[in-house]
């Protein structure tokens, strides 16, 4: 049974379960739903969930782990002597996988398999025909292994169908049988829902794990090629095409901090004041229009900002500020990129803060205004502290966006990695270098490319520290209202 069909059957079972359970629940109470502990809908939902959730969990876990079993089955057919020089068991196994795949396709086409299985050459040709590439030519052993893996897969799928359907039916029957007026269907539904909610939260944890793991192995690879002391303590970033590069991270970190700081210095005041104005002063109508308008700023592709920085803001700053003041003549500068990035992240601060400010109960404002405070005093001393967690969250999001931005930095700040205090000089950021090192023309296994992973991991750690600090600050200053 294919996975799709299986899913359809499960869905149908769940729907049926829902309907049956509802009626059964009402019937069990003698037609008077009021006698039920839980509403009929809860009985229905519980049944549907008991059909779906365990079955889905089994299905997913099965699909993840079945690969290992199939691999084992195939491996058992292979001998060490099957691995030619210069190849590895892994390579042979991927060939086996492809042969099995090709055989399935051939079978689906109605090709007679027996003669192919007997003759590796015929099989090779037939596989090409269905578009299955091979690392090496099939051998009798690999064919055997492929057959074994197909067999294992077939058995596994039959097992899967049986087990999931059994689980689904068991769930259905178990719940249906327990339906009585006293049955706490709501509690059970909620307990199950809770697991779904927990599952949703775990996705975030899983993502982190995934990120760390996918960065870690290449980072270690990088540190095998490049001394970590140079990476962390060298103060120059100067990769060369032909190798022998200086890959000190500090200029990049400095650039990241500098650009983000300028961006926040632009976005936080503008965003916060906009939010305050919109939430506290503006009329409902104004707010209804202005808020979405400002949000467009977050949706404009960054390339537009980049060009805006490069073509408009950069020369403007150069001609009106940096050259007259004698502090540089570069049109790309941290200042340019920071300013423009600041504009881009305004809505992060303004819209999110606006919502939170708006959620502060009116009675608090009344309390303050009633004491003769001006609206601005009320906002600064009562409303903003009460909205602090949300505002800090908004600022963190803005900072995150700034740290992650590439296009604006590339076009606005230039590509020069340097440690300088002068905001009118070109600099660059970690993220920009991650992208450019990852997409350049040098070979992948060189420190120049792999450094991207180390940069990613370092940045990850740094932002983690930043977030911990932010959490501590929020905890310390939060004012919990009733």
């Amino acid at each position, binding site marked *: 049974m294919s996975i799709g069909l299986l899913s359809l059957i499960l869905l149908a079972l769940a729907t049926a379960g829902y309907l049956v359970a509802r009626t059964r629940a009402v019937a069990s109470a003698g037609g008077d739903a009021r006698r039920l502990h839980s509403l009929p809908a809860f009985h229905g939902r519980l049944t549907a969930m008991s059909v779906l959730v365990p079955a889905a969990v089994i299905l997913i876990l099965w699909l993840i782990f079945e690969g290992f079993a199939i691999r084992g089955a195939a491996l058992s057919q292979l001998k060490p002597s099957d691995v030619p020089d210069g190849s590895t068991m892994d390579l042979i196994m991927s060939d086996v996988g492809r042969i099995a795949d090709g055989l399935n396709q051939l079978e689906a086409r109605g090709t007679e398999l027996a003669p192919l299985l007997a003759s590796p050459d015929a099989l090779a040709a037939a596989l090409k025909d269905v578009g299955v590439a091979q690392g090496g030519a099939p051998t009798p052993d690999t064919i055997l292994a492929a057959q074994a893996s197909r067999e294992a897969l077939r058995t596994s799928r039959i097992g899967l169908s049986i087990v999931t359907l059994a689980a689904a039916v068991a769930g259905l029957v178990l719940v249906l049988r327990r339906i009585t007026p006293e049955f706490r269907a709501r509690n059970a539904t909620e307990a199950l829902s809770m697991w779904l909610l927990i599952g949703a939260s775990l996705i975030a944890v899983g993502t982190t794990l995934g990120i760390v793991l996918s960065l870690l192995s290449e980072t270690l690879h990088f540190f095998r090629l490049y001394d970590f002391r140079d990476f962390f303590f060298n103060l120059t970033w100067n990769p060369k095409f032909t190798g022998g590069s200086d890959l000190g991270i500090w200029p990049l970190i400095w650039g990241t901090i500098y650009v983000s700081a300028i961006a926040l210095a632009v976005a936080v005041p503008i965003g916060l004041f906009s939010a305050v104005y919109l939430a506290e002063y503006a009329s*409902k109508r104004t707010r209804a229009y202005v808020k979405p308008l400002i949000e467009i700023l977050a949706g404009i592709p960054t390339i537009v900002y980049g060009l805006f920085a490069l073509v408009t803001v950069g020369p403007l700053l150069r001609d009106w500020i940096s050259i007259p003041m004698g502090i540089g003549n570069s049109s790309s500068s941290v200042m340019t990129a920071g300013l423009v990035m600041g504009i881009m992240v305004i809505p992060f601060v303004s819209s999110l803060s606006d919502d939170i400010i708006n959620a502060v109960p009116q009675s608090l404002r009344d309390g303050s205004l*009633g004491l003769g405070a*001006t609206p601005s005093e009320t906002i600064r001393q*009562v409303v903003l502290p009460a909205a602090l967690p949300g505002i800090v969250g908004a600022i963190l999001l803005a900072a995150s966006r700034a740290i992650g931005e590439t296009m604006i930095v590339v076009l606005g700040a230039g590509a020069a990695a340097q440690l300088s205090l002068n905001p009118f000089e070109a600099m660059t950021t970690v993220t920009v270098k991650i992208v450019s090192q990852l997409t350049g023309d040098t070979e992948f296994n060189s420190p120049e490319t792999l450094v991207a992973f180390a940069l990613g991991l370092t940045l990850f750690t740094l932002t983690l520290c930043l977030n911990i600090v932010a959490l501590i600050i929020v905890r310390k200053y939060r*004012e*919990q209202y009733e």
Partner: protein
Amino acid sequence: MKLEREVAAETIKIQARKVQVHYGTNHALKDVDVDILSKNVTAFIGPSGCGKSTFLRCLNRMNDTVASAKVSGSILLDGADIYDPRVDPVQLRAKVGMVFQKPNPFPKSIYDNVAYGPKIHGLTRSKAELDEVVESCLRKAALWNEVKDRLQSPGTGLSGGQQQRLCIARAIATSPEVLLMDEPCSALDPIATAQVEELIDELRSQFSVVIVTHSMQQAARVSQRTAFFHLGHLVEYGETGTIFTNPKDPRTESYITGRIG
């Protein structure tokens, strides 16, 4: 009502004329005329929902914050129309303080709650002076003994009655000329109520106090004048003694004797 007008000539603190309030289509206050005298306690009584709080909130323009509320008519404070566009509601509210019906302490420490007013109005010059003000206000509001050991814990963690007294302390800390108190003793036990009533009497020596109450006894005890509201109308206004012993309007009489609500 003729009587007061004459007497009041020099001591009228607030003069309200033809005050009307609409909440959207709900006509909550209809043509209310009241004179509130200085150095006097005025009690507003009337069944729940009759418009007492609404009128109170008109007196320091707190209704400005309710989007749906429309206020018309004139209210003069010391002869100046408080709805005049030139009037700064902030300054008005500094002069006309308010204790709300639902206690609404700030989510700050107890100390900061009381110190808030003096700070924004710059009433104290030093930390020590501020400490003093906070203590004396909390004492006056009969809360000091209960909270003196936890001044730094949040005001929202107090019991209902404690919050109410905190709000009273917060309001008197700014020394307003007129203090509007919306059911300030509703959550207080008799002893605390007596203390607050004492405070009100004390305040009267310098300021005007307007108090909304559901307790006739309280109105009779603390106020010199009483206004009776009913369904948005000011039915009767006069000397407290007269209102309670010799009401002119039959509705007043029925209310006082507990027949309409």
